[in-house]
């Protein structure tokens, strides 16, 4: 991608199922074992229509990308196959990149995933970007137990090798791996973008993920962790590149998340937006501790670090309700366009990143607020930032 260009803004939608009962806290988790009898398909239908219209609006408003992602057995999101939503968006949008971030490699055959994603790239005329996460711990409980969390990372790295070779090497060829064997690896169609669509990895600072970023020259995005930890991860990655003599990690390869609500004034933004952002953090992410951490999912040294920093609280279910101050440290902001733009400007400087994943619909935010938030963000916030931090004046003007 064009390194050195100004910051770009991707609108992220999780498509949450909002019809959960008031007393949902009697269940430990909104994931894995949250009963699907609580799902009403009629409401689901209405929500899909509504959420698709919000993504389409974001394209019209000039967002650079539209992000959809994959989760299973949860009210958190209604996209067990985000490629379907991506395919629905393609004919309704024209400029925004279609960002499937991500697709769970470990729970698909990598050749089929290579084909599916190539389809989306060809369908969209080369607008696809894709992220490959290892998958939350919960996915290892929700999906077929043939995928062992204790060997998840080995399987993931092999699957990635299969997929990228299927995209970039002329087939057919055979593949003999520990997890995947192919007599004929020969993915049809091939992607339109060459050598392949831009790929991203999501991480929390683990060196293994950074090694993959380096190996494939990929983008790197932090999962939801406090901003100081994110910044350390970005710095670590840049240092790694320098140590290894690799090309510098340009801003277009770094992405960070913001949880954001914009209104006419700071007071109004806080009044209208905060509750939905907090709802997301205190409800949508609610999952039983042991589902987050299936055996082998974290390396022992990583677990030790978490336990030491949390005073043994990690892995217990007695998490306290998050306050607005808590979520601010994850880069949440509610304010007027100026307040939000100033804050985002600081965060762009802190991270050195050039891609902002904008969570502008969260939790139970109603449609009118989402439209308002998207519109004010696109019309009042983005223009202030394009000018402010674009590397060259020209590109800022060209926008």
């Amino acid at each position, binding site marked *: 991608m064009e390194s050195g260009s100004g910051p770009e803004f991707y609108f992220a939608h999780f498509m949450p199922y909002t019809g959960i009962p008031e007393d949902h806290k009697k269940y*430990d988790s909104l994931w894995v074992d949250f009963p699907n009898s609580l799902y009403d398909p009629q409401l689901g239908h209405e929500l899909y229509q509504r959420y698709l219209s919000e993504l389409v609006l974001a394209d019209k408003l000039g967002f650079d990308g539209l992000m959809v992602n994959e989760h299973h057995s949860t009210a958190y999101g209604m996209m067990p196959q985000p490629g379907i939503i991506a395919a629905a968006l393609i004919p309704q949008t024209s400029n925004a990149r279609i960002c499937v971030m991500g697709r769970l490699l470990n729970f698909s055959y990598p050749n089929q995933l290579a084909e599916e994603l190539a389809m989306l790239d060809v369908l969209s005329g080369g607008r696809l970007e894709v992220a490959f996460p290892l998958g939350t711990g919960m996915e290892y*409980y929700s999906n077929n*137990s*043939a995928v*062992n*969390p*204790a*060997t998840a990372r080995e399987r993931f790295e092999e699957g990635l090798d299969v997929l990228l070779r299927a995209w970039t090497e002329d087939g057919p060829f055979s593949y003999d791996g520990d997890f995947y064997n192919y007599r004929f690896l020969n993915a049809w169609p091939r992607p339109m973008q060459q050598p392949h669509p831009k790929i991203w990895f999501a991480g929390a600072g683990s060196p293994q993920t950074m090694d993959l970023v380096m190996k494939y020259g990929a983008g790197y995005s932090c999962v939801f962790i406090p901003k100081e930890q994110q910044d350390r991860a970005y710095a670590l990655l840049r240092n790694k590149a320098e140590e290894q003599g690799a090309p510098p990690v340009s801003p277009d390869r770094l992405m960070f998340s913001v949880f954001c609500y914009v209104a006419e004034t700071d007071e109004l933004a806080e009044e209208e937006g905060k509750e939905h952002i907090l709802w997301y953090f205190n409800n949508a992410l609610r999952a*039983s*501790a*042991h589902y987050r*951490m*299936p*055996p*082998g999912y*974290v390396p*022992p040294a990583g*677990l*030790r670090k978490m*336990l*030491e920093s949390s005073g*043994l609280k990690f*892995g217990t*279910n007695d998490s306290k309700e998050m306050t607005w101050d808590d979520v601010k440290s994850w880069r949440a902001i509610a304010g007027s366009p100026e307040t939000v733009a100033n804050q985002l400007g600081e965060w762009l400087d802190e991270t050195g990143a050039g891609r902002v994943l904008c969570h502008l619909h969260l939790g139970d935010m109603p449609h009118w607020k989402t439209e308002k938030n998207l519109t004010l963000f696109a019309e009042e916030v983005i223009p202030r930032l394009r000018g402010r931090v674009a590397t060259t004046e020209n590109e800022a003007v060209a926008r």
Partner: protein
Amino acid sequence: MSSTRATEPLTPEQRVVGGDTQVTVLRAGSGDPLVFFHGAGTAVGFDFAASWADDFEVILPFHPGFGSSPLDTRLREVRDLVPHYLQLLDDVCPGPVNMVGHSLGGWIASLVAIHAPERVRRLVLACPAGLRVPSHPTTDLFSLAPRELAARLTSRPELLGSPESVTVDSVVRQYEETTSLARLIWERNHDRTLQQWLGRISAPTLVLWGTADRIIPVEQADVWASRLPRSQVTTIEGAGHMLFNESAAAVDAVSSFLREP
């Protein structure tokens, strides 16, 4: 815990099996060899085995990835432990041995006895895992929350220690052992063809079970007994899955059975 007759502590010994797999073996006593295969956790310890050392040479290997034996990532299923243990037996005690397996260790012991019936003099299977019994299935350890697991594991919860005894080290060690277990049995906690081959086991076999076992139901005992050619079933009233830690009677039942000619 289970006996006051212990005369000799279990002493660890480092060994290398099959060229490069490192394991720790606990040993005590002298006499006929008694090889004990432990279950899926080692945290509560094996004090009970010391009482067997009065009559037997107790040999208690830690499976790779459990206790103080390092993980061997090449081992991917329970069956991979069969050649591992046949080699260890050749190294440590050639000739027929008394074999005792608890839970996962019972699964391993039955596989070893199927593959090399001549190596087993007498066999004890204590609430063994490994069979697929749809009417009384083995509990899936991985989907239980820790507090549910603790409640099911034993009828004597004090064995698991107080919440204050939990440390970062103990949590990490437990997670590592559960990971080692997952490498072997995450996909399924039984062996689809084990039942078919139990008829190969020629040694007299004691199937020992606690009636209050909430991990592997005692009803599975009869399935084992119906397939094992020379078996008897003994149940221990009120005992849970941590059979030997919980019940001195279970420990003594092993000694009595193995002392028979």
